[in-house]
Structure formats: C-alpha cells, structure tokens
C-alpha cells in the first residue's frame, strides 16, 4: 500500500532521512550476539565500508561485548555468522563491503556452547 496523502506528489517528494550519503562516508552496521540478551538489542555503529571485517572481532566486539562473563571463553573459530539473516562465512581480511555488509546491514554472531549466563540466553 502507499500512503494516502492530501498533497499531490507527496510520495515522490519524500526525503529519506537515513540514506547512506548522510553518514559522512560511513555506513550504519548493526551487530548482535545471539543468545546473549543481557545486551538488550543489536548495537549500531557508523563504519567505513572499506573497513576490514576483522576489525569487528579484533576491536569492536571485544570493546563493547567484552564485559560479558561468556566473552573470555569465546572461540572465534567456532562462531557462526549471519549477514542480513543469511548464514555467511566472512573473510576477515576483506572489507565490510566485499563481505556483503551494506548500509544498515545486520551482522549476527552465534557462539555454540556459549548461550548466556547459566545457559539462560542472558
């Protein structure tokens, strides 16, 4: 369905607020650690599309998820990835863009065997 508007041509005049061009060379990327819902929602970052995906595991995830008690047992080799809902095997040396991570993409990672505080998915 399309919007029912009073003003003729309203739909064509719409200014989409979060277009990639508005983020000063960055794109928005969302990260989510599955079965660890003490992080209440996926997290959002403005990242350059040319940034290597490995920077997520080396820098961002340790910085923002490292306080979880499960983090010290995390083995990156067994992590299962999903990019925009599809299972993925990302190449850590390649860029976000080359790995198919676009503007407002959601990158989920699951850590088999680690499913939150006392297995509660928290």
């Amino acid at each position: 369905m399309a919007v029912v508007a009073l003003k003729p041509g309203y739909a064509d005049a719409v200014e989409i607020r979060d277009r990639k061009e508005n983020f000063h060379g960055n794109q928005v990327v969302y990260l989510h650690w599955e079965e660890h819902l003490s992080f209440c929602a996926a997290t959002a970052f403005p990242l350059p599309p040319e940034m290597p995906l490995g920077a997520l595991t080396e820098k961002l995830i340790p910085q923002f998820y490292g306080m979880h008690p499960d983090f010290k047992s995390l083995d990156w080799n067994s992590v299962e990835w999903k990019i925009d809902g599809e299972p993925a095997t990302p190449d850590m040396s390649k860029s976000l863009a080359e790995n198919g991570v676009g503007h407002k993409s959601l990158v989920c990672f699951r850590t088999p065997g680690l499913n939150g505080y006392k297995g509660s998915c928290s």
Partner: protein
Amino acid sequence: MTPPRKKKMNLKQRYALMTRGLDWETSYQKMDDVFPYDTFEGIKITDWSKWEDPFRLTMDAYWKYQGEKERKLYAVLDSFAQNNGQQGISDARYVNAIKLFLTGVTPLEYQAHRHFAHLGRHIRGVGPRVAAQMQSLDELRHAQTQIHTISHYNKYFDGFAEFPHMHDRVWYLSVPKSFFDDACSAGPFEFFTAISFAFEYVLTNLLFVPFMSGAAYNGDLATVTFGFSAQSDEARHMTLGIEVIKFMLEQHPDNLPIVQKWVDKWFWRGHKVLGLVAMMMDYMLPKRIMSWKEAWEIYFTEAGGALFEDLSRYGLRVPKYADIATDEAEHISHQNWAIFYQYTQAAGFHTWLPNDEELDWLSEKCPNTFDKYYRPRFEMWREMEAKGERFYNNALPQLCQTCQIPMGYTEPGDPTKIGFRSSVYKDERYHFCSQGCKDIFDDEPEKFSQAWLLVHQIFQGNCGGADLSDVLKWYHMDQGIDNMDYTGSPDQKQWDAWQAARKKVAG
C-alpha cells in the same frame, strides 16, 4: 413596562442552539475549500447531522464546571506543598515514575490540545467540531495542571526541570513523541481513531489507572487529586472515541476496511508505547498495585474483549496481533527495564536492580517467564555490581523504524531470540522490532522512511557531538545528577537526610 419574560430553554434546546445552531452552509466559498482536510482519507460521510453528542455540554456550562473543579485541585496542591507532601511518599524511588510521566506524557497532552484545536476548526460536522474544541481545552488544562502538580517535586528532585526540551530529544521520549507526531500528521479521521478511540477508549485505563493508583499507593496525594480532576474529562473523551468509530461505520460500508486498518495500527502502536507504563508498574513503584499482566487482563482482555464483541455488529474485529500483545504482557516490562538499566547513563531518571522481595513478586506475577528468562539476567547484573563491574551497554542500540524503541523484543513464542524484522523500500533497508511495526511501515513507507531515529541522528552529527557527554549536554541532562542509578544519586542523599531527620524528631 417590563417585557414579558421569555420561557427558559431546556437543556436539549440550549444545546441545539449553542452547537448546531452556530453552523451554516457557506455560499461564497465551496464547503470543500473551507474544510479541505476531512475527505482525502477516503472516509465517506453522508449525513453529518447523524452525529450524536451524548454529553450535550455547552461552552458556558463547560467554563463553570471546569472552574469549580480546578479551584478544588489547586486547594489540594497548596496543602500538599504546605505540608511537605514530598516527604510523605513511600520512597524517593517512586518519584522516578513521575519523572517519566512529566517528560513522556504531559507534552502529549499539549500536543493533543493543539491537534484537537485543529480538528475543532476543520471538521465539517458541527457536532464533532464542538466536541473537539472542548477536548482541546481539556488537554490544555491537563497539561497545565500536570505541570503545576509536578512543579512541587521539581523543587526537591532532579530530572524534571528540562522536560519540554527533553521530550523533543531524548531517545526513549521519541517513542511517545513519534506516536503523537504520527497521529497529528495523519488526517482527522485517523487522528480520531488513533487518539480518541485506540488510545483514549481502548487503552486509556492502562495509562491512567496505573499512574493514579500507583500515586495513591505511594502517598502522592497531589497526583491522585489531579487524576480525579481529569477523570470526568476522560469520560467525555472516551465517549468521543466510541462515537466517532460508530459514526464512521454507520455512515458508509466503504469505511470499514479503512477504520479496521487504523484500529490495527493504533492498537499496536499504543501497545508499544504503553510498554513504558508496564515497566513503571512492575519495576518503578516501591509499593506495587498490580502487575502489568494483571492490568492487561482486566483492561484489555476483558474490557477490550467486550468492546470488540459489541463492535462486531459493524463488522469490526479485534485488532490484529492482539494475541501477540497479550503474550507480551508477561515480557515487555522486564525487557524494557533491562533496556533502561543498561542505558542508565542516558536516562533522565534513576534506575536500580529489583531487590529479593521484588524479584519474588515478579516470579509470582509472571510464573511462565520470569524465573526462566529474566531473573538470571538480573542476578548476573547483581553479581557484576557486587564485583564493582556494573553492566553498562556502551554501544548505541538498533532502533525500530516504526516505534523507535531499541529492538529488544523477542520472537513470539521464543523469548531467547530477538524478533528481527526488516523491509526494503526504494533500495534502503529498514528494521523493525515486530511484525506489527513492520506491517505499519509497509503500509506507508513514504511516511516512516522519514522517521527521526536518535541513534542515526547522532551518527549524522546532529546531536551535539559523538560522545555521551556531548549528547547529554544536548539533552540538557546533568551527568551524575539526572541520570544513573538511584543508589548514590543526589535524590537518594536528600531522601536519606529527610528520613534521618524524621527519626531524630521521633526520638
């Protein structure tokens, strides 16, 4: 010689003269030009005179009646202030519920005032036009009396002073704000359906009863008195809500699918906004009244069930996803409080972890969910606090494009998985917390692709800077005073000093 006295008119005649009698058909200008807003939504009205106003309130009676009510209210407020009522509340944690109300709800009263004034000019039928004019005045009075009631707390507690500024900027206040902006930017009939019917009729008890009973249970006489004062107005607003739905459905069969779509949309939007009230009831009241789940059962499942059964004769059915909302009644408060706990650094009120007694109360009230999914979360955080490693989420959350809440809601039937939904519109990806929010977007992507999402605005450089301290300044929030945990706050220090002084007096 004195002229013969005219016979006094009865109420019905007076009402007819002072409402319907004020209307006329324009002849120099086309009626469609004078009333440009009330047809484009596709709602067909064949006979405006069929509108029934059961209250038959005229403007002169309105002034007299409201004036009397307000004199009483302000007398109580004066006495509350003179007797240091702020010291008689159950616990200073309670005040945080009032902070949420003043920053989140009071500005909506003002928005409602503005938009009902707009409808009071732009609806072609004189009956609903007069009703909208009166409601516009009610809403302005409510905004004022709430501000006056709560101003007393502002003298003693933090977090109140910048409420209108905060309403326009703070991440969680964009939830009620965007709800109302959505309604005000819609046509008049959608606004009526959104605010008068879905919010004021179907869901209002879930907003006002918890706050007002919560106030009564926690010794806040000022807020209780405001609540009573507003109650008779609310009854009139509810009547307008149900009348407008029946009127639309009776006027033309083509109106049904449009009305149903709006009812579905605004029920879902209302349910998400009321998640803030759910959290207030289950976590923020030191003396609890009932759980959100119990309130939902009484005020939505039972009362709403009877209402929709009544409306089924017009072909209207229970709002889409009412079953999902009902399931969520045992989750939403826990999920929301968890959001505020981990983002306490950016909240304009104080947070805390529930104590043992409170955890047990929550287990009892939510036997199917709390111990399994949410108690472990709080226990983990408690352990971390004890080690001096209080859990803060230092990254910004992904927000729902429709309701603007951090996407912290789980998949229906599986509380271990976040319920991600997304859509693509004009090559851009959009994310939603639920199927309900996705459906709303998909129906009007042109509108919601313009949503002002705080997290993205920070990234775009529109919120004072990139650091938390910059954004707090831009919010007008004082670090370490307005935000963070209750424990260690200036509010707590003040409250403890009052309690110590009382003990001393009591000897």
